[in-house]
């Protein structure tokens, strides 16, 4: 059984989703790569920000 940490699961999720978003939402390879990286950063950064917010609210 595969048991990733919560953060590893977030990174894997962001990686796979970003690849699909990049390829399907843009037309040229250069723009696909840029959009994929943008989505990946947005996924992981928003997960980290929301995690810290929830941590601070729960204290």
């Amino acid at each position, binding site marked *: 059984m*595969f048991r990733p940490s919560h953060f590893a699961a977030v990174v*894997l999720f962001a990686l*796979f989703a970003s690849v699909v978003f990049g390829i399907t939402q843009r037309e040229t390879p250069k723009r696909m790569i840029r959009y994929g990286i943008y989505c990946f950063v947005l996924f992981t950064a928003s997960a980290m920000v929301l995690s810290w917010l929830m941590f601070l609210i729960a204290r």
Partner: protein
Amino acid sequence: MATTQDNNAAAKSGFVYLPLIVGWLVPGAGHFLLRKWGRGALLAASILGMFVMGIAMQGKLYGGAHDILDILGLAGDLGNGMLYFLSRAAGLGADQVQVTTADYGTRFIVVSGLLNVIAAVDAHNLRTGRKS
């Protein structure tokens, strides 16, 4: 140049919804049908990877719909096409979520299905010329 045009013409002949249907049934196959090898391979690797990791995390495969959330989960799972039916037939996936990682796995399986639908629609857009 003429050969490339011939290949594109051959790829874009026939039933217009074929890349959509084939792309839904087998991740990335819609793009392979249109000779977009690189895009198809990356899409297949991403969707298959996500689905396999979901199964490896003991994620739940929705089999029936008892409430609205189950219906949404089943709709997402069905987006995986043949992967869903084969996995159900093979008895893969958990019946109930018992550990935290299984909850992640369930989401991975649902989202891989939704991503597969996006990829299949993209193949259809390539076929109709809405996207290049």
